[in-house]
C-alpha cells in the first residue's frame, strides 16, 4: 500500500499516525508531497521516526514540492525523489493507495 502524506509533521499528526499504523509492516511505502515533504528532510525532530520506518518501508518525496520549499538539498539519505511521472508510477505499482488527510 502506498501512503501519501501531505502535511507538515511539525504541525499535524498525519505522519505520526501513518507510521504508527503502517510503520512496522512490510509492503507499505510512503510518499511525501506538498507540506509533507518537510518530513523527508534531515536534522529535524522527526528524522529519527522516519529513519526507523525506512528499515521496513520505502520512503519517497515529490521533488517539485521539495524545490518549491527550498529544501531539496536537505533530504535525508535513503529517501527516493520522484517527479509527478514517478508519483503516477508509484500509484500504479502499488495495489492500493491512501491519502492521510
Amino acid at each position, binding site marked *: 500500500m502506498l501512503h501519501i502524506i501531505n502535511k507538515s509533521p511539525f504541525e499535524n499528526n498525519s505522519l505520526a499516525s501513518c507510521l504508527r499504523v503502517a510503520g512496522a509492516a512490510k509492503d507499505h511505502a510512503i510518499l511525501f508531497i*506538498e507540506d509533507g515533504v518537510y518530513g523527508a528532510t534531515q536534522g529535524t525532530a522527526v528524522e529519527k521516526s522516519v529513519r526507523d520506518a525506512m528499515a521496513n518501508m520505502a520512503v519517497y518525496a515529490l521533488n517539485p514540492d521539495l524545490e518549491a520549499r527550498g529544501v531539496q538539498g536537505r533530504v535525508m539519505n535513503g529517501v527516493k525523489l520522484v517527479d509527478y511521472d514517478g508519483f503516477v508510477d508509484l500509484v500504479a505499482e502499488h495495489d492500493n493507495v491512501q491519502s492521510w488527510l
Partner: protein
Amino acid sequence: MKFAIMINEGPYTHQAADSAYLFARAVLAKGHEVTRVFFYHDGVNNATRLTVPPADDRHIVNRWSELAKAHDLDLVVCIAAAQRRGLMDENEAKRQGKDANNIAPGFRISGLGQLVEAGIQSDRLVVFGD
C-alpha cells in the same frame, strides 16, 4: 491503467487543487486513462467560472476546463457539496429560483454515487485534500 481522482479542497487556498491537476496531467502523459475527476467538499469551488486570479498566476479553473476539453475528461461536481457552497449550473439555478449560475465549461454537477462508481470502475482512486 484507469485512474479516478478526488479533490477535496478549493483552488488557491490548498495545494491539493494544484497537486491533483499536475497528477492528472502526468497520468494522461504516461498514456493512462483518467476515468473521472470528482470534486467534493470545498473542491467544488474549483468549478466556478467567476475566478479572476492575478495576471501573473496560474488559472486553476481554466486549466481544468482546457484539460477536460483536450482529453474528454469527466469533471464531476458533487451536487450536495455544491449547494452548500454556492456552485450551480443553469438548470440548478432555475430549479432553485436563483438569478445566476457560475459553473465553468467542462464541469458537470451530479450525485455522490458518481464517486463510488468511479471507485468501482477504476484501477486506482487517489484522493487530494487537506
